[in-house]
C-alpha cells in the first residue's frame, strides 16, 4: 500500500475550521429557509418589486460599465500615457474603498449642492440622489473597477502584434479594436461582465447612502433583505436564498477560470 501523505494537524485543524466557517452559514441558510412558503414570499409585491429593480439596475450598471470600462481598460493597457501607473492605481481605489465611503463621495459631488450636482439641477433639472438612476450610479462606482481590471489584464496578455498585422492590412485603429482586439479578449470581457454584474447586484453600502431606500424606486434586494430582517425574518431568508442562488449561478459561469484552478 502507498504510504499516506502526512498531514500535520497544525495545518489541518485551522483549515477544517476555516472550511466550516465558510460553508456552515450558507448551509444553515438553506436548511432554515421556509421552503414551503417560498413561492408565497417570492410572489409578494414588495419582493417582486425589489427583485425586478435589482435585476434591472444591475443590468443597466453592467451596460454602463461596459460602455465606459472597456475603452478605459484599453487606454490603460495600450495608450502611451504619462502617469499610467498612477491612473491604474486611481481606478482600483473603489475596489478597496468601503462602499459607504463611495456613497458619501457621490452624494457630496452629485448632490444638489455638490459641484457637479448643482449644475445638473440648475441647467437640466436633473437630480440624481435618491432615484433609480442614482442606484445605477452607486452600483457602477463600486462595480466598474472589477470590469476594468479584468479587461485590462486580458488586453495586456493579448499579443498586440495582431493589431499591427491589422494595420498593415489597412484597418484603422477603431476597426482593429472592433474586429481584432475585442474578439481576442472576449473571455476576459465575459469574466469581467459577470463579476461586474454580480458585484452590482449585491451592492448595499453605496446604494443606501447615495440612493436611499424608497420601495419600488431604490430598494434593491440587499436593501430589502436588511429591512425585512426586522419586520419579516422569513422573507429575509427567502431573499437571501434567492441571492445565494444568483451567486452560485455566477460561479458556474466562471467555473472554467476559477474552480478548476490553474491547469
Amino acid at each position, binding site marked *: 500500500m502507498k504510504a499516506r501523505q502526512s498531514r500535520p494537524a497544525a495545518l489541518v485543524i485551522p483549515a477544517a475550521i476555516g472550511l466550516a466557517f465558510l460553508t456552515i452559514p450558507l448551509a444553515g441558510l438553506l436548511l432554515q429557509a421556509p421552503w414551503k412558503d417560498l413561492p408565497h414570499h417570492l410572489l409578494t409585491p414588495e419582493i417582486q418589486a425589489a427583485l425586478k429593480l435589482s435585476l434591472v439596475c444591475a443590468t443597466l450598471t453592467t451596460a454602463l460599465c461596459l460602455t465606459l470600462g472597456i475603452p478605459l481598460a484599453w487606454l490603460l493597457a495600450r495608450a502611451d500615457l504619462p502617469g499610467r501607473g498612477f491612473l491604474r492605481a486611481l481606478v482600483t481605489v473603489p475596489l478597496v474603498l468601503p462602499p459607504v465611503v463611495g456613497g458619501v463621495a457621490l452624494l457630496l459631488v452629485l448632490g444638489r449642492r455638490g459641484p457637479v450636482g448643482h449644475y445638473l439641477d440648475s441647467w437640466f433639472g436633473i437630480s440624481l440622489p435618491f432615484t433609480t438612476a442614482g442606484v445605477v450610479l452607486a452600483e457602477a462606482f463600486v462595480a466598474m473597477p472589477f470590469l476594468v481590471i479584468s479587461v485590462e489584464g486580458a488586453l495586456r496578455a493579448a499579443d498586440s502584434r*495582431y493589431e499591427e*498585422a491589422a494595420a*498593415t492590412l489597412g*484597418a484603422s485603429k477603431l476597426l482593429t479594436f472592433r*474586429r*481584432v482586439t475585442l474578439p481576442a479578449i472576449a473571455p476576459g470581457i465575459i469574466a469581467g461582465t459577470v463579476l461586474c454584474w454580480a458585484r452590482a447586484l449585491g451592492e448595499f453600502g453605496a446604494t443606501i447612502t447615495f440612493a436611499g431606500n424608497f420601495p419600488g424606486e431604490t430598494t434593491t434586494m440587499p436593501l430589502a433583505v436588511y429591512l425585512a430582517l426586522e419586520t419579516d425574518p422569513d422573507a429575509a431568508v427567502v431573499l437571501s436564498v434567492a441571492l445565494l442562488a444568483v451567486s452560485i449561478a455566477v460561479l458556474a459561469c466562471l467555473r472554467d477560470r476559477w474552480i478548476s484552478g490553474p491547469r
Partner: protein
Amino acid sequence: MTLDADLRITRDAFALDIRLTVRPGEVVALLGPNGAGKTTAVRALAGLDHLSAGHVRVGDHVWDRPPKVFVPAERRAVGVVFQDYLLFNHLSALENVAFGPRARGVPRARARTQARAWLATVGLAEHAGARPRTLSGGQAQRVALARALVTQPDLLLLDEPLAALDASTRLHIRAELGRHLRDYPGRTLLVTHDPLDAMVLADRLVIIEAGRVVQEGPPTEVARRPRTDYIAHLVGLNLHKGTADGTTVALDGGGALIVAEPAAGPVHVAFPPSAVGLYPRRPAGSPRNTWPVTVAGLEQHAHTVRVHLAGSPSVLADVTPAVVAELRLAPGTQLWAVLKATEIQTYARG
C-alpha cells in the same frame, strides 16, 4: 515607381543606416545575421515604426520623411507576411484574406469574391472555411501570402516567410512562393537569414551586418566575390539551374550531375563548397560525379581556403590550407573535382 528607402533609425545603442531600392517586379532579399536590423527595416517600411532620419517613398508617394511626413501603416499600400503569419484565429481563412479589402472599403460580397479567388490561387480553395489553427504550417503560410497580396500592394514585405516551416514543407513552399513572386508586379523585399531562400527567390541580395549594408548585388555576383567572411560563409553555396531526368540533371551552364533523389523537369541543384573534393588525377573507383576543372582563384578565409574552379560546371570548393600546399594549388592548376550524389540537394523550380 521604384521603392526608394533611406532608412536611418537610432534606438538606444543600435543604429540602422541602410539604403534600399526595389524596382517594380523585382525581388530584393535583405540578408543578415540576427540583430543586424532586418526586422527594424521591415517595421519602418511597413509604417509600424518611425524613421529617425532619411526617407521612404514609392515613386512620387512619400511615406516617411521626418520630421514632417509619416503615413501610418493603415494608409500605406503594403502587404506583410509575418514570420509567424499572425492570422486572426477567430476568423476563417476566407475572412482573414477578405479582411484587407474590407478594411479598405470594398463591399463585403466583393471582398469575399476576391478572397476566394486568392485562396484558389494559392491552392486552398477547399479550406476557405477553416480556422487558422486547424491549418498546417504550409497552409497557414499560403493564407498569409494570399492575405498580403489580395489588396494588390505596391510593396510586399516578407519577414522570414519560410522560417516557421519544417524542412520538407519548406522546399515545396519555397518553389511555390517563387512562382507567386514572379507573377506579382509590385516590389518585394524578402527578409531572411537563410541564404538558400535568398539565392533562390531574389533577383538581388542586400546583405547587412550591424545596421549597415556590407554588400549588394545579384546572387551569383555576391557568391562569386563575397566581401566579408560572414558573406562568404553565408552565400558559399554552389547553386545551379538544370533540367532533371530521373537522377541525372543536365545543367543549363553545361555539364551534368548525378543526384540521389530522382526528379523531373526544371530544378535547382545546390551543394556546399565543402562537399567538393579535389584530386590531382582522375580518381580510381567510380565516384558518380567527376569532372576536370581549372583553378581560377583562391581566397583565404578564417580556417579554410575557398577555391574557384572553372569547368563544366564551374564550382566553389572549400579546402584546408594543408590541401592547398599538398596539391600546389595556384591559378591555372588542372585538377579533378569529385562530388557525392548524396551531398546534392535538388528542388523543383516551378
